[in-house]
């Protein structure tokens, strides 16, 4: 089963963990066959929100909600169950500085 591990950090902690450490973590997951994809994200100021209402596309600056923590990156992992996913997520370095939200991936019903 796939889980998205969404990394949240407060703005002043976005660079609290070195990129080299995050890259090494991703490489470690990949070599053990646990990783589907992982990316770090540009800070939230670069975000654009897109909505379609009544067929019209509206575009606004920034994310929908003002929150203290922002989405800083994500790992898409493969794990047998939530316990295994939690163990993997606890190895993600920014878990020390911010938080990692573990969300099961939903199969589209098609």
């Amino acid at each position, binding site marked *: 089963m796939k889980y998205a591990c969404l990394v949240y950090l407060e703005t002043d902690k976005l660079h609290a963990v070195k990129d080299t450490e995050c890259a090494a973590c991703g490489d470690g997951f990949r070599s053990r066959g646990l990783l589907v994809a992982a990316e770090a994200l540009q800070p939230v100021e670069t975000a654009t929100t897109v909505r379609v209402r009544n067929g019209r596309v509206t575009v606004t600056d920034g994310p929908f909600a003002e929150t203290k923590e922002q989405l800083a990156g994500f790992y898409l992992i493969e794990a047998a*169950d*939530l316990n295994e996913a939690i163990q993997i997520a606890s190895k993600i370095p920014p878990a020390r500085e911010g938080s990692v939200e573990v969300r*099961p991936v*939903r199969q589209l019903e098609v």
Partner: protein
Amino acid sequence: MADHIQETVDAVYTAESRRVLATLIRLLGDFDAAEEAMHDAFRAALEQWPRDGVPANPRAWLVSTGRFKAIDAKRRLARFDALDDTADGPELGTVDPEAWTDRDSVEDDRLRLIFTCCHPALAPDAQIPLTLREVCGLTTEEIARTFLVAAPAMAQRIVRAKGKIRDARIPYRVPEAPELPERLDAALRVIYLVFNEGYTASSGAAVTRYDLSSEAIRLGRLLVDLLPEPEAMGLLGLMLLHESRRAARADAAGDLVLLEDQDRSLWDRASIAEGTALVGRALASRRFGPYTVQGAIAACHAAAREAAATDWDDIVRLYDALLRMEPSPVIALNRAVAVAMRDGPAEGLAIVDDILARGELRDYRLAHAARGEFCRRLGRSAEARSAFERALALAKQEPERRFLERRIRDLGLGIRD
């Protein structure tokens, strides 16, 4: 004959339904399907046992009947849904029927169920109801009444928790060694919260509530049987020692009786013996935690035939150990009470005032009640009165309110008015 079978089925339900459910959850991988399968199996028992006789191993019969009923139901569904090719999971098809119901795997299933219901990924306010429902077999209505929540709201909490178990795939597994201590703590916390909810019913009149303390003790016994970890023994010991005082804790009018004023001949000696032995075993392991230390404190009280014989020196030392394990203002407050008993109320008052000065426990009724008691013993009546009044404003439980009102009344004579 039919009555006799009905009685047998009822008895088997009481003794085995939780085990049957736990095993069906493992075999079917789904709480709701397992529950339905279990009820189908008991329905089938009521039909078939009068005709065919009671099977030699009713539990095995119920598990395999429930399992076949569930597979049937799934096949019927699959017929309507041609795309569904998952009607038979590997677990359903290949497991040896004997292996489903031998004692070890069945008891493992009960342990799996406890750890799943107490999984820290579930909302705390859902862990207790889920445990009471799935492990103890309480109905949603009983649980809702106990926690003074409307039944539909409680049902929704339980449904949401089961949904998360399914969708986030919380495994039906006993945690492995590296995660066991933390997960055991979570399970013990749930059991102790259930116990406390029954023991000190946080609001309302005490007697109307489901007997949660006995339920918690039963859970504690089950856990110790299945997983004899020291801290699980310590918690069971602690609960038994508290429970041993039940008959002495309230007088005939339902009013609270303080530990020092209790009629110790009402204490249940069998519970004390069992609880003390469990705490002793846990202490001897040298791998114990805070529940065991609290159990040791309760055992000290239980060992004193009269209040004056209490070894307060030992109790203060145990509180010191507890405070090192778990620095918390509530434990510091309890330690203050023990210090007051050993060294006098002035020493206790100094500690409580220190805690309050740090801004901790300002809204905790028992901090003000303890302050009131120390002041009363020191003859500082006006201060005692205002502390008791503060405690009364914060207290919700009826017997406790009456106790505080009595204290205020006794102090009030001739001082204010």
